[in-house]
């Protein structure tokens, strides 16, 4: 391989191809699009958490300056538009399917959370639309609301949906109850912990946006939108909501400014814009402002859990018993039922060899914004629970936390857990050892006493996490209730001049696919990186794809590209054999050149590409002209990224401020294509995890159901001065279930870091638990109640 090409190959920190447009202001995000004669949409939202709509009078708004049209739930219903759906059906332990309430695009007779969509005003300008919305007269009958997770299942609490008594959508279980009971019966010690996993609001920096268009001549609708999976959006909008038939609907997700899960889902605003574009006969543009994002983007996490861990006298884990109440919000969002069930319960074995696990999860409705996948989706909640209770067990047994983990690690693979997952490869001790070394665990005691001499409290906390990525084998998810398969597609198009377009069903919204995917293709074909273009995000270009979430784009999306490249190579060799008058078996393809083994005959990539299209003299029965191949790749297993994060904090007892003095992350992602990009993904994930542990909290007023944290004034986003620089390390076990050996890296930081931080904070404070986010106020309060002990140390 030539030096220049090798420097762009797999494993190289290649600088990103996409950066030029972003650093020069030439990106194309949805809100950057302006269409001739476009109108602007503004959504009137419910000011109540729960109310009956007695009547809506839109006449004054319709007569207001600049107004083109006003739509309400009645228009949507009259038009026969279906509701928004949840693509995953969870079955309760009694065998009944989950009890889903309807999710209309615009509220019909009831509003169910503050921010619920009541009407859409379309006008010549945004200012006109906004002003007219104020003229809509909605007669609400305010009703009591179910807000607090701890009381929403009470008999006397208000009902969100009549279909779901006691606001319980499903009562799900996983694992073997009897075996788990038996394990607890023979335990020498049982450690118990009640945990809250705080509600988070995703806050991708680009707010959601949409521009809906309708072409009367062809009957084709086009929706440009901020989506992580435009094909899934098209499928849902056509097959379920019924906006237009699939072949008459194009969905484009151009540059997207971050997603973190929140842009997977099919929301009301985008749906209404494309639907109404035909009604008004003009393009309709909507760009959410940040306040709307807080109110109506799907939130994340929000669990209450009780966990019990059974140990024998040597500290071996015998069993884990978990009861969780998971908030679903007011409506089921696109994947919400799967998040606190199959993405949560299945990860409760952690890195440990558990003989028995039993988990029960109640998915409950409340009068709050829908809750769905947010970076990690279920796996952070599982990891938080496991790593908090393991650390607590270490403290209660007096066994060093690293040692207790070591005693219980899974060491042989494949390993079948009691909760579905079959771990394929890993070396958990290797990442623990590397992390201990990087943080200088041996020196901790000295650092702690040095901090104490300055009046500061120092603590250290561990998190040995595992997650499941590469979502997912279609048969497996199908058997568990998914309405879709989770394969990925790719198409490799070689142009006559030898450059290459790769169409992928993955979508990049910060992950750098244009670079990483091109590295794979360029190194495989022996061509320069610049001659490879990655095409994604447009249903008119890419035939179908499942999109990007669950750290699936490497393990699944790139595997599809590998399969397509295999086919390209097979056909190219056939053409080469024909051109060089040799047998196919004698053709060698290396470094972008085809040679005939044992001869000096050779053919460069560009020559072959051209010949594929001139096709002169091809034996037409054997070789079709052209060089273009597609593949669908369905994974055979989940992938299992794992590692160890260790956090060291220092707390100022006078202010309660926690400073992260060192954060070490050692991850095993299998094969890494671009370490620079992978490190960036880890940094961002850790930052979100630190946000969850120390800063962020989506809070509703428990009585009124008003969102208290509805802006950056109240919702504490991590800023540069809240965070340290991170120390990263990598270990590697190759994933055996996909051709590149990749595991996925997008969510690890957000999954692993919160328990490491809270373990460190509780260590510093000498307490069992502190609720996330461990704000200075909470830390200070904890210090006041723990004052005698803290002072004595």
């Amino acid at each position: 391989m030539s030096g220049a090409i090798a420097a762009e190959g797999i494993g190289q920190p290649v600088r990103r191809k996409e950066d030029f447009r972003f650093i020069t202001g030439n990106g194309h995000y949805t809100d950057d699009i302006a269409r001739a004669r476009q109108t602007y949409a503004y959504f009137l939202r419910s000011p109540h958490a729960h109310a009956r709509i007695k009547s809506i009078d839109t006449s004054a708004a319709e007569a207001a300056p600049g107004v083109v049209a006003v739509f309400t739930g009645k228009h949507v219903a009259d038009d026969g538009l279906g509701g928004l759906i949840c693509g995953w059906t969870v079955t309760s332990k009694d065998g009944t399917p989950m009890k889903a309430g309807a999710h209309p695009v615009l509220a019909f007779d009831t509003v169910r959370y503050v921010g619920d969509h009541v009407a859409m005003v379309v006008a010549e300008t945004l200012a006109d639309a906004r002003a007219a919305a104020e003229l809509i007269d909605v007669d609400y009958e305010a009703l009591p609301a179910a807000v607090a997770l701890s009381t929403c299942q009470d008999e006397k609490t208000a009902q969100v949906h009549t279909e779901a008594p006691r606001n319980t959508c499903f009562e799900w279980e996983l694992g073997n109850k009897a075996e788990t009971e038996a394990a607890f019966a023979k335990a020498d010690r049982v450690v118990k912990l009640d945990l809250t996993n705080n509600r988070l609001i995703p806050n991708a920096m680009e707010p959601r946006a949409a521009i809906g268009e309708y072409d009367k001549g062809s009957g084709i609708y086009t929706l440009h939108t901020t989506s992580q999976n435009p094909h899934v959006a098209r499928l849902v909008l056509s097959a379920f909501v019924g906006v237009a038939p699939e072949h008459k609907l194009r969905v484009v997700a151009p540059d997207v400014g971050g997603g973190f899960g929140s842009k997977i889902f099919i929301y009301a605003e985008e749906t209404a814009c494309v639907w109404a574009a035909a009604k008004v006969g003009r393009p309709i543009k909507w760009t959410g402002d940040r306040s709307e994002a807080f109110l109506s983007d799907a939130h994340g996490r929000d669990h209450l859990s009780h966990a019990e861990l059974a140990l024998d006298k040597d500290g071996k884990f015998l069993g884990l018993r978990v009861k969780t109440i998971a908030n679903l919000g007011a409506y089921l969002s696109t994947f919400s039922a799967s998040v606190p069930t199959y993405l949560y319960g299945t990860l409760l074995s952690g890195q440990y060899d558990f003989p028995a696990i039993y988990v029960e999860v109640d998915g409950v409705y409340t009068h709050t914004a829908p809750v769905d996948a947010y970076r990690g989706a279920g796996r952070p909640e599982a990891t938080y629970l496991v790593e908090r209770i393991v650390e607590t067990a270490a403290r209660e047994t007096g066994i060093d936390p690293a040692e207790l983990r070591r005693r219980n690690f899974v060491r042989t693979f494949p390993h079948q857990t009691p909760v579905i997952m079959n771990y394929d490869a890993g070396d958990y001790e290797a990442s623990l050892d590397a992390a201990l070394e990087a943080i200088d665990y041996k020196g901790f005691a000295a650092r702690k006493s040095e901090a104490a001499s300055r009046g500061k409290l120092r603590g250290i906390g561990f998190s040995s996490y595992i997650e499941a990525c590469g979502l997912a084998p279609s048969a497996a998810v199908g058997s568990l209730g998914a309405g879709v398969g989770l394969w990925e597609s790719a198409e490799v198009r070689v142009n006559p001049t030898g450059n290459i377009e790769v169409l992928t069903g993955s979508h990049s919204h910060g992950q750098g696919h244009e670079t990483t995917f091109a590295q794979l293709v360029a190194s495989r074909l022996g061509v320069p990186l610049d001659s490879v273009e990655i095409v994604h995000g447009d249903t008119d270009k890419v035939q179908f794809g499942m999109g990007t979430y669950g750290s699936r784009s490497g393990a699944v999306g790139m595997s599809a590209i590998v399969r397509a490249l295999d086919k390209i190579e097979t056909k190219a060799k056939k053409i080469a054999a024909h051109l060089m008058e040799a047998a196919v078996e004698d053709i060698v393809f290396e470094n972008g050149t085809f040679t005939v083994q044992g001869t000096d005959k050779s053919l460069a990539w560009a020559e072959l590409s051209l010949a594929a299209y001139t096709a002169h003299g091809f034996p037409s029965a054997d070789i079709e002209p052209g060089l273009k191949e597609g593949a669908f790749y369905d994974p055979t297993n989940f992938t299992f990224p794992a590692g160890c994060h260790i956090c060291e904090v220092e707390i100022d007892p006078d202010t309660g401020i926690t400073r992260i003095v060192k954060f070490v992350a050692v991850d095993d992602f299998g094969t890494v294509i671009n370490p620079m990009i992978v490190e960036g993904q880890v940094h961002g994930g850790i930052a979100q995890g630190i946000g969850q542990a120390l800063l962020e909290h989506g809070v509703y007023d428990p009585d009124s159901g008003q969102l208290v944290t509805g802006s950056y004034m109240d919702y504490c986003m991590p800023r540069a001065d809240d965070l340290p620089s991170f120390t990263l390390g990598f270990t590697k076990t190759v994933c055996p279930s996909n051709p590149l050996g990749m595991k996925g890296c997008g969510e690890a930081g957000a999954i692993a870091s919160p328990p490491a931080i809270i373990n460190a904070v509780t260590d510093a404070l000498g307490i069992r638990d502190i609720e996330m986010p461990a704000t200075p106020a909470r830390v200070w309060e904890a210090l006041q109640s723990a004052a005698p002990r803290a002072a004595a140390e």
Partner: protein
Amino acid sequence: MSVVAMTVNGKPASADIEPRTLLVQFIREQLGLTGTHVGCDTSQCGACVVHVDGRAVKSCTMLAAQAEGAEVLTIEGLAANGDLHPVQKAFREHHGLQCGFCTPGMIMTAVDLIRRKPELDEETVREELEGNICRCTGYHNIVKAILAASQEMR
């Protein structure tokens, strides 16, 4: 409606606009310079930072009329004569961006920061970025990029 006129990226720019028009709206909607972004409605995120008469300003927090007669520089005008500014180069070199949405504001803020404080250290950079939110990078590489650029520009 009233006419405002200013210089944007070295070129005269004027439009007849409603008095309530924000500078960021003028830049994005009137001039079509969509590199400047809007990430919040409370003046907190810094996605909208541009330079007005050489100083970093949140363009969502200022009326277009207040920039009457001013020299405005947006991200599109930063690469003078097509050569990337050292801060732009450093963001690329150190992977200081992922989705790119906060990036124009970050870069414009960083250019102003390096002008004001040529001798930067990590702590100062982190403090000075108080008004710019990035959800993707965890700031690690942004800080690195700004420190590298400030070295380069010394």
